[in-house]
């Protein structure tokens, strides 16, 4: 019966969303962080009146503008793709998910786009203070838009504040504040936003390092490094703290994803954290190609239990516990969840028939079964193939560990740079300046890895436990999606090449002597 699913349609629809989201995420974190770095620099300019700071601010605004444009270009697609490629999803949770998108437009996008015009065109048209306020509003507007879209994303990972209505066959919002302030929303926003600030600081230091190595724009580069390193150290510490909090939220609400982070197949108390690990290329479980075991690993004893539950004696469930169940720790098996999910789905169908027949007793009965089993509604779609409930462990494991390792490394790097600045040795430290340049691609790898961890780790769910990708996808011809995937790939890659060429050229030109954008 599973042949009835067009898995290629699901895979291509997912691929298209991943492609467009990942392209979008190349440009967004830099603008999120650079907005604040520019605003700090302009504040120093307004307070000191030193034109050198204006020159520094304007150069980084140029870099901001180039990124912002392509961020906008790649962003519009995502909003509409929820409808074009995930139409069932749009109805099933549109009552909750649509609101943050609309609020994002009304409260954040207009703020950003209105004051960006003042920021770029207003140097000689508005007062210094109005201009400075505009720059800060652009920075806040960008972060505010990130807030709303991340609230929406967090809700998909931890659906709260809603109730399923069988009359309309959808989830309906019951508490806006639960949606806005859920632990997942708080952790997702704070971690994503601080990591974006970190990335921007790395880019500013990297570009400035290049100038120092070439002995160009020395004053500009040193001042940029000071601002970026202070900003970067603070935000990297914040990134690590929020990352730690995020991991705990995931452990409590998405145990399968958490198990995939660590490649943990068999749950245990005093679970060790895999610091470094290499996975086998052949499946550990012949029935599931997503599960692969380690050929080599270095572990930190007890640390995973502590990280997840702040208790070294806590039990961390493994993939096998989640699939086969574990009575001791009261974990239901996948088979049980699937059965209950199917009960919920069938009860919804019964409810509809009873309503048509105007049989109130049967409606009440169906509704009760639905309510009792709704928390597993999405599992009902896996009656034929439970193995799909497991995400790709290697991809999740590697992306999680790359992100964590690089995050730690960046914090150390900022501290080292600040130390060198303090000792007045930054211009002579060729080694660390070279590392500064090497860090640029690493920052993007870390940033993308974060999203791969979050999104691949939660597969197969679009809405955790309630709606899998197979029940969310639009009913399109696979070839149509392949065609648009290729078109997006070609167009976005072309635009990326243009963006990079323009960026490199502007960096080569460097900050202008006076005025000029």
């Amino acid at each position, binding site marked *: 019966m599973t042949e009835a699913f067009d898995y290629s349609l699901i895979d291509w629809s997912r691929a298209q969303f991943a492609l467009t989201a990942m392209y979008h995420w190349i440009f967004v974190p830099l603008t999120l962080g650079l907005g604040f770095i520019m605003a700090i620099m302009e504040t120093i300019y307004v307070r000191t009146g030193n034109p050198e700071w204006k020159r520094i601010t304007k150069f980084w605004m140029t870099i901001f503008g180039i990124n912002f444009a392509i961020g906008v270009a790649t962003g519009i697609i995502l909003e509409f793709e929820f409808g074009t490629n995930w139409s069932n999803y749009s109805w099933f949770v549109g009552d909750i998910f649509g609101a943050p998108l*609309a*609020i994002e437009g009304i409260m954040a996008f*207009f703020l950003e786009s209105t004051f960006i015009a*003042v920021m770029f065109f207003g140097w000689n048209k508005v007062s210094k203070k109005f201009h400075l306020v505009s720059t800060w509003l652009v920075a806040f507007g960008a972060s505010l838009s990130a807030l709303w879209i991340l609230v929406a994303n967090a809700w998909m990972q931890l659906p709260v504040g809603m109730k399923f209505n069988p009359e309309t066959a959808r989830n*309906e919002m019951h508490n806006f504040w639960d949606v806005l302030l859920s632990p997942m929303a708080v952790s997702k926003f704070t971690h994503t936003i601080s990591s974006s600030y970190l990335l921007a600081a790395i880019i500013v230091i990297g570009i400035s390092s290049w100038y120092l190595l070439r002995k160009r724009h020395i004053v500009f580069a040193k001042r940029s490094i000071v601002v970026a390193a202070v900003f970067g150290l603070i935000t990297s510490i914040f990134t690590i703290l929020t990352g730690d909090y995020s991991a705990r939220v995931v452990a409590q609400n998405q145990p399968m994803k958490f198990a995939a982070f660590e490649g943990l197949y068999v749950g245990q108390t005093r679970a060790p954290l895999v610091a470094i690990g290499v996975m086998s290329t052949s499946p550990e479980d012949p029935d599931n190609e997503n599960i692969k075991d380690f050929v080599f690993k270095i572990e930190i004893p007890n640390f995973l239990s502590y990280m997840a539950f702040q208790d070294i004696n806590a039990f961390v469930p493994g993939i096998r516990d989640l699939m086969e169940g574990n009575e001791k720790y009261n974990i239901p098996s996948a088979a049980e969840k699937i059965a209950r999910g199917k009960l919920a789905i069938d009860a919804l169908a019964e409810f509809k028939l009873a309503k048509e027949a105007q049989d109130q007793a049967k409606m009440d009965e169906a509704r009760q079964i639905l309510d009792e089993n709704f928390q597993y509604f999405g599992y009902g779609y896996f009656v034929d193939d439970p193995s799909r409930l497991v995400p790709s462990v290697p991809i999740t494991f590697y992306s999680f560990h790359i992100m964590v390792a690089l995050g730690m490394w960046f914090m150390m790097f900022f501290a080292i740079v600040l130390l060198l600045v303090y000792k007045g040795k930054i211009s002579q430290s060729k080694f660390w300046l070279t590392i500064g340049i090497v860090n640029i691609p690493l920052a993007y790898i870390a940033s993308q890895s974060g999203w791969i961890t979050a999104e691949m780790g939660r597969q197969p769910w679009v809405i955790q436990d309630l709606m899998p990708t197979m*029940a969310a996808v639009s*009913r399109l011809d696979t070839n149509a999606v392949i065609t648009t995937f290729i078109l997006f790939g070609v167009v976005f890659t*072309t635009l990326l090449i243009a963006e990079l*060429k323009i960026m490199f050229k502007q960096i080569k030109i460097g900050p202008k002597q006076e005025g000029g954008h």
Partner: protein
Amino acid sequence: MFETFELYTLQQYWWIIISLLASLLVFLMFVQGGQTLIYQLGKTETERSLIINTLGRKWELTFTTLVTFGGAFFASFPLFYSTSFGGAYWVWMAILFAFVIQAISYEYRTKPANFLGRKTYEVFLFLNGLLGTILIGTAVGTFFNGANFSVDKMNLTNIYDSAISRWETPFHGLEAVLNIHNVALGLSVFFLARVLGILYIVNSVNEENILVRARRQMWNNAVPFLVFFLYFVIYLLLKQGFAVNPETGEIFMEKYKYLHNLLQMPVVLILFLAGVAGVLYGISSFLFCRSRKAIWFGGAGTVLAVFSLLLIAGLNNTAYYPSLHNLQHSLTIRNSSSSHYTLTAMSYVSLFVPVVIAYIYVAWKSINNKPIEKSDLDDDSSHIY
């Protein structure tokens, strides 16, 4: 405050907000219209740069309004989002691609090492102006002429084929451009955008040659606009419409439905007539009195006219997205909206809109306080596209 409102009141309120956003979007598409006139109004590189720079100061406003319109539609009428976007795939994708290529073109056009060359970015701007306006107009035409979809929310319970909405033609929306009435609306929007583009450019650019050419171009665009617009309006007022029985929810065809809507909602009729008069006054005051402030009449008229047209598409017991496949599957503001709670929460958010409009006004005035001139293009201290 909003909590006490009936669900239907909130649904009407949100249809009004959506209509207002759509009408502001059509007005702001003067940017798109202007982009299709770059070569007709500007014969030298400097003239073209003047036009692009004055349009470039507003493109993000149009873009943001489009994105907000999409988000607000999703939040208030998610079943439309689900049905139309997921079904009329090719039309929406074409619109999106047209806007993707716009977003980078202003910023990248004159930057050194821009990979594709200045001309390519100008072609992108032209394509955005051409396709963006015509396709959005054509898509809105389906609000009055219907589309080939079916909806059954209970498909969700079929675990092997759970899509709740299906498109019933293999063309996924492309068939809309084969309907002459949809295309007439699309072309009306296109020529109206050009008319507004001309009015905005003469308002914000100080260059005699451009002003002279603008007058000639106004004739070339105002006449076809009026032809297509009058054709569409007359057709609309005489055609059968998709009515809803408010008691049963049954959809049925009603003769002169849209004419009835105007007559039964006299305020909307007045808004419509005022809007059409505003656009006509804007065009004629520029053509005959050489007014350079005609954009304000043309713009306000556009907002009122489009606003009232969309109101008659959804209010007064009308199905705003009719299904040609099965009349009873048509979308109405009652059967496609968000819940009472969400509409209430969103209604509070809508109270921010006047604040947004106020700061947009302040920023607009501060940047457009004097028309752009050739000397501005050499101003090294400003951002030049």
